[in-house]
């Protein structure tokens, strides 16, 4: 349940950003989460349900954009999207395995919707 730690961090960042913008209420929180970030959506939702009480985001929607995992092939000098959920990055053009993951680890607070 590391999702609880993530949600606490998310709420902290969100409240700071909302206050800095002069808002009093957060109506939506938009996250970007990489396919290999190790986050379970249901656990995230569960943690959010508990943690948001008493915060500016008490009535906020939580919206998550899942980003596909993308690796870089040094031989072909090009990026490719992983075609599996196992973190196996094999270049579709030349079959070389890649250890260079360019996207997929993200745990990003992208933006908020706020109100006065």
């Amino acid at each position, binding site marked *: 349940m590391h999702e609880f730690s993530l949600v606490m961090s998310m709420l902290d960042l969100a409240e700071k950003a909302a206050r800095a913008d*002069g808002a009093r209420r957060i109506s*939506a929180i938009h996250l*970007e989460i990489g396919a290999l970030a190790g986050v379970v959506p249901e656990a995230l939702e569960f943690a959010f349900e508990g943690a948001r009480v008493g915060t500016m985001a008490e009535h906020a*929607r939580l919206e998550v954009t899942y980003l596909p995992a993308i690796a870089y092939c040094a031989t072909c000098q090009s990026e490719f999207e992983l075609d599996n959920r196992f973190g*196996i990055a094999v270049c579709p053009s030349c079959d070389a395995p*890649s250890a260079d993951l360019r996207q997929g680890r993200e745990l990003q607070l992208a933006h908020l*919707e706020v109100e006065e």
Partner: protein
Amino acid sequence: MSGPTEPTTPVATDARGSAPAEPQRVPAAGTAASTRDVRVSPHGTAATPGARVVQVQKSLMVHNDGVAATNREAFRHSLVLNVVSSPGSGKTALLERTVRDLDGSLSVAVVVGDLETDNDAERLHAAGAPSVQIVTGTVCHLEAEMVARAVDQLDLDGLDVLVIENVGNLVCPAAWDLGEDLRVTMLSVTEGEDKPLKYPRIFKDADAVVINKIDIAEVVGFDRGRALDAVRKVAPGARLFELSARTGEGVGDWLDYLRERRRLKASAMAAAATDAS
């Protein structure tokens, strides 16, 4: 749990599109904010009437990563490992073996995280390493701040190797940088050869993968070829060690690796110090 509530289910949207309608500038409701340049997300406008969009674009790990950077600075004279595995793979056993077999040729200290008890720290202390136990209570992973507090109890001066033994868990510790130089992911032969496929992130980020308990591989029907194949697929860049912490088989290569990495870090730090002066 009553009364009208807004939907809270995370809404999965496609990263490559699905921006509703054309983005437009969202009018700020308050005068204080109205002079501000409110940028509109590429994913769309504020869906809530009267709301405006505030860009944040910050990692949820920003606080942890800041503390990890401070740790890394404090750790500049030591090689620091972050050892992760499932419970029971033999992290503590490998560290006991490592401390005993190094026999003082490198000084080693250990920070060990567990949900409860200080049994592991006592084992490591008995093996000859100064050890600090972090009891995490309900927290399933170590965070940089916990490590920062723990190392306050250690003398880092002249310490060759600091080992951080993470909580036994192959999922949660993955995202938390502790300030380590090397991430070491362990599995043992009793766990199933496809473990790297089941827990890709923690294997993908590994600098070294250790397969432990090879002394009982045959008895438990361990398919070595399949396991190595899975490790190689998920973590093609990781150094691989096959060993038995119990019998000591294969541990020599592991110790050589630690010595080598310790030497590389020391010379990198010396070079940086020369450049700076």
